């Protein structure tokens, strides 16, 4: 995973709440067996509307998506994260993310930043006034900065450390194999197994 320390880019205001994962990437796009190429399905139902924000020239270069509350509700599909990343987004800002989506994004290195709804509104207004507005998302200081505004956000130390080091979660857990072995040695025998097959 790529290290995430700081990102500087311009924003895309997505003034919608409850953007679920079926909107981010509809099921028909989920048939691929790779992690790439999902950008064509991103927000696909809205992409043929010329007024949709991603279709506006001014926002074509945006790398920071600023969305309404309850972003990423619905299915567990990590394809939603990949689609955003494949399209070029590095950061998504919202006042509330669905749990699974947030977990997925932080595992894949897409930084999801929770800001109060007032800050999101202020950011929308600032971006709409100047789509090229430079926004800095700094994980080291846990802040979002634009013009003369700086807003702090929270992220637990462990996740922040993992993202800043670009560490692979599985590799980290495999270092704890002794603990897993010890746990398994004590697991009760009546716990079900899928093999051998009983029907």
């Amino acid at each position: 995973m790529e290290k995430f320390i700081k990102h500087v880019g311009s924003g895309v205001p997505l003034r919608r709440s409850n953007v679920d994962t079926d909107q981010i990437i509809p099921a028909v796009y989920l048939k691929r067996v790779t992690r790439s190429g999902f950008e064509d399905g991103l927000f696909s139902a809205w992409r043929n509307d010329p007024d949709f924000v991603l279709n506006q020239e001014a926002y074509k270069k945006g790398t920071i998506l600023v969305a309404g509350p309850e972003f990423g509700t619905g299915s567990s599909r990590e394809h939603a994260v990949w689609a955003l990343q494949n399209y070029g987004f590095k950061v998504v800002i919202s006042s509330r993310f669905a749990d699974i989506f947030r977990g997925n994004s932080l595992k894949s290195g897409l930084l999801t930043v929770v800001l109060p709804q007032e800050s999101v509104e202020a950011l929308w207004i600032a971006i709409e006034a100047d789509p090229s507005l430079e926004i800095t998302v700094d994980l080291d200081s846990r802040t979002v900065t634009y013009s003369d505004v700086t807003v702090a956000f929270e992220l637990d130390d462990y996740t922040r450390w993992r993202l800043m080091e670009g560490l692979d979660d599985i590799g980290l857990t495999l270092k704890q194999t002794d603990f897993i072995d010890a746990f398994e040695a004590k697991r009760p025998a009546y716990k079900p197994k899928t093999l051998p097959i009983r029907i």
Partner: protein
Amino acid sequence: MGKTLAQKIWEDHVVRSAEGEPDLLYIDLQLIHEVTSAQAFDGLRLAGRKVRRPDLTIATEDHNTPTIDILKPIADPISKLQIDTLRNNAKEFGIRIHSLGDADQGVVHVVGPQLGITQPGMTIVCGDSHTSTHGAFGAIAFGIGTSEVEHVLATQTLPSKRPKTMAINIEGTLKTGVTAKDIILAIIAKIGTGGGQGYIIEYRGSAIRALSMEGRMTICNMSIEAGARAGLIAPDQTTFDYIKGKPHAPEDWDAALTYWKSLYTDADAKFDLEIDLNADELEPFVTWGTNPGQGLPLSGAVPNPADISDSEERGAAERALQYMGLEAGTPLKKIAIDTVFLGSCTNGRIEDLRAAADILKGKKIAPKLRMLVVPGSERVRQQAMKEGLDKVFLDAGAEWRNAGCSMCLGMNPDQLSVGERSASTSNRNFEGRQGKGGRTHLVSPLVAAATAIRGTLSSPADL
């Protein structure tokens, strides 16, 4: 102080905990399907890693599979590739798989319980948000993303932050015609699609204890629609009776039962949040909008966005009415339906099919309406045929299909067309969920059957 059920199960699975880090949680069972696993297996291969516990892993084909001509090669080459990839991965990594044509092929969340592999006190994960279904047995079961699928395959553990706990107490007795589906739709309408965020919800109270395992699964299934990490119900005699005799019921039954009986919330335990609901007052519930929280009793009318004070919610309601093609003030019972879908991991179990067949027996579905009946698993399909339910559906004019997710998410050819309106027993009414431009109303199996007969949203009492 005492502990909640969720805390007890959680603590029984902590492999390692360290200050400032998420708990490393042991996973008792991982369910796999074709859509969210390919990239995980790829990751293992790239890193030269093995599956740690193939014997705690099981795969089925469900999301993308056809529901007709299932033994012919899959027509869509991309769908076929995805299924073939799952079959090859299962073979390479030594994982049990139930493929099309097999008795235990079907929606993952129907298959686990029917095999008796879903048991109280377990931790269960799957790359699918409706894994919460298994919580009906008193297990902590939650959906995960593909990176986590890979993590569990490689280590049989998952670093996880301990969720908060919420109790939803539902006391009272349901009126005739009111089902588990109506309970959960009413809960989501009350607490909202984000109301459960960060919580494991425990459903409690006399109305919950009176439910069958099928009904409990319907409720836990849709916990995710309230934003919760998981939903669960304390195991009791109903749970034990359901598991007894299933293929993977514990051989050492007594040892298992002793543990299972310790799985309840202590009287002096404290939940982070408690919510009460009166079962006596509930009515059949349907959704009118494009998220599962936009629901009302069937006797109501399409709401007027102007009456909603919260500006965010008002905007969402306006957009929903436009997408759904509905006028504020229209009685819900006047809404005409084109397609009825009976199936999914919410309501595709044998009890759901029986309930709908009971209403449809000797009747015909409305002219021009199509009804798709898709059993949750092949085993459910066979059981239904043994009971002659297939004949009831076919005689009524419905289509009788093979098992799978089907129109619940419209990944296979079972889709709504633009503007087509469905009454669906599934769990999501998102824009385009059942096909681009399709309009979905979530309903119970009873409402689905009555709607199929009358052609407009209806409950059995309207017949």
